[in-house]
Structures are given as C-alpha cells and as structure tokens.
C-alpha cells in the first residue's frame, strides 16, 4: 500500500497543477490570438464556429449602432453622407447573414443593434477609444467608424484561423473584404488624395 502523501507533497502538487493550468491557458490565449502556435499536446480546444461567428455578430451589431448614430448626427457633410449611408445597409446584411448561419448551428443569433451599455463594453474590450455619444464633428464620426471597421475586419481575420465550415469560411472572406472596402473609403474621405492612408498595407488584418 502506498504511503499517504505528506502535507508538503500535497501543497507542492497543488502548486504544480495550478502552474500548469495557467501555462496552458496562457498558451491557449496566445495561440488563439495568432501570436504563437499552440504547443503540442496543449489541452486548449479551438473555439467552435458558433463561438467565432458570435463574436463576428457582436462586431456587426456594434457597427449597425455606430452607423445609425453617425447618420443621425448633423456632423457629416452632404457629400460624405451620400457615400457613407449605404454602408449601414451593408452592415445590416452582414448581421442577417451571420445570424442565419448561427441559427443553422443552433446558436443564439440576436439581430437588433447593441444597446449603448453593451456597445461601450464591447468597444472597451477592443480598446476602441472613440465615442458613440460625442459625435459633434465629422472627424469624430470618421474616427468611430474607422476604428470599428478595424474591429470587424479583425473578427473575421481571427475567425478564419479556426473556422471549419467552408460556407462560413467563404462568407467571412466576403464580409472581411467588404469591411476593408468601408475602411478604405472612410480613410480616403478623411484624408482626401492620400492613398497611402486609404490603403496603407498589402494585407488586411484588422484589430483583435
């Protein structure tokens, strides 16, 4: 019969288990963020398609709220408003498409715009400092929309690393491309004639 563990051995074992859990969680988080490959044997399940698209849906609902607030403000010039107004329609189509896929996966798929409190929490999570309420100038509007388009791009770019369903992979590619186009046109309106600011990189990643 094996001797009972001493108190010292029990404590040492608990500390080792805790450290391993933290290490695995950290590695899993970093891997999910795309910073490092998950170590072999790490017990961190990849997010499901439903989880990934739920995050994308939250980003899209945030976009809908932001575009509505911007278009309801008096801050945009008529020319800019004419260009930007159709983007709200695109975001609504994105919400509908992502929600439809989530429903097919048996997941919750709320389609209404986020309430202000949830939106501000989501923006805080993505470290977006722009305001949803202080939209006094056109520059305020550009900053909000451009920052959130980056968040939306990032949601799909991040999802692409783990999405399993081909239809969702294609949809994510299509929507990410559209968000990148929004980003480019908004940046172009904000910085007329400065193409390097409208298309600064050969690659689009968005923000995490």
């Amino acid at each position, binding site marked *: 019969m094996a001797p009972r563990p001493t108190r010292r051995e029990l404590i040492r074992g608990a500390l080792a288990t805790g450290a391993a859990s933290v290490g695995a969680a950290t590695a899993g988080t970093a891997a999910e963020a*795309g910073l490092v490959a998950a170590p072999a044997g790490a017990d961190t399940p990849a997010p499901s398609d439903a989880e990934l698209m739920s995050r994308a849906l939250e980003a899209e609902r945030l976009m809908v709220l932001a575009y509505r607030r911007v278009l309801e403000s008096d801050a945009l010039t008529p020319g800019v408003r004419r260009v930007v107004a159709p983007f709200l329609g695109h975001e609504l189509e994105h919400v509908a498409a992502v929600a439809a896929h989530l429903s097919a996966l048996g997941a919750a798929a709320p389609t209404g715009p986020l309430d202000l409190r949830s939106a501000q929490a989501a923006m805080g999570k993505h470290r977006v400092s722009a305001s949803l309420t202080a939209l006094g100038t056109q520059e305020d509007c550009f900053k909000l929309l451009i920052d959130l388009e980056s968040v939306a791009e990032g949601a799909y770019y991040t999802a692409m690393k783990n999405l399993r369903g081909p239809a969702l992979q294609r949809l994510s590619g299509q929507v990410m*491309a559209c968000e990148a186009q929004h980003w480019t046109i908004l940046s172009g309106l904000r910085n007329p004639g400065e193409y390097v600011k409208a298309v600064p990189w050969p690659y689009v990643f968005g923000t995490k």
Partner: protein
Amino acid sequence: MSSEDPSEADASSRRRLLRAAGAGLAGALLAGCGGESLRAQVHDAKPILHTDVDLLNHLLHLEHVAIAAYTAGTPLLAPQTLKAGQLFLNDELAHAGALAGLVRAAGGKPIKPAPSYDLGHPRSSEEVLALLHRVERAQISAYLEALPRLEPATVRQSIASILANDAQHVAVVRAALGKPAVASAFANGRE
C-alpha cells in the same frame, strides 16, 4: 486629417518601410503588422498541402497578370490616380512574393511571369482603370473560390488578408471610375 492619430501615422511609416524593403521581404515584414508572420504561419504545426501547389500557383499567375497591368497601365493614369496605381503595384508585388513563398513551403515551384499578357490596348486613364478593375475582380473571384479549398487554416488567413486588400483596390478604382465604391455587402468578384 488627424495627424496625431497614431494608427494612421504608424501605418504611413510602415508603408514607407515596406516599399523600401521590396516585395521579396513581404513575409518577414508581416511580423510587425499585427498579424502572425507568413513565415511563422508556414512553420505552424500543420504543413501546407502539396496538393495546394496548383491552386496557389493559379493565384500567383493572377498576381503576375495584375503586376503586368499595373506596370503597363499606371503611366497612363491621370495625375490624381497615378499615386494609387504605384501603391497598388507595390501591393501586388508583395502578394506575389507571399504566394511564391507559400508555393515553396508546399514543396512546389512558383510559376514565373509569362513574357507578356493580353491586356488589350488601353489608351486613356479611364481605359486603364477599366482594365485594372477587371484584373482585380478576377483576383477576388479566384481568391474566394480558393479560400475554402486551402489548408491549413493559417494559409486561408493569409489568402483572406490578400483578398481584402484587393477588395480595397477595387473600391478605389470604382470610385475613380465614378461608380459607387462599395458595390455589395459581400465581395464576390462581380462588382
């Protein structure tokens, strides 16, 4: 323009660095861009499938066509769009470099540019823009077709990233042609 916006000022300086370094360093430079570098992705746990070589080479062929179109057409662009043509040529060169790297990582040989391509005979800035629009749309269509067929997922991520950049090009070209810049909520290569 908000000159104190750190994201845009940072993007401008990175853009200059990218142009100076040339397309051949595209993979290494990606390491500083907020995404996992192509090199890191290639050395991820899962290898790129050798069966993807043909598909990746097809995408590389389309990049060669785009490079030829931008190289030949940009000098004919009007002054207000000339700079965009130059920037987008750099982007396509970077894409070609990245795809060539993926082909090699899959154990294949990157397809070389053809001696010439049938680009028609555009003579005006508008005709060049129409050509560039066709070329970019063909790329978007091909990238979307390829996306769900490629493995591993990190390669799909890279392809999505390039696809989105080509979509940005389309938006600028469409605006220069006097069309609505973003034609659809879902990029499909027909816009």
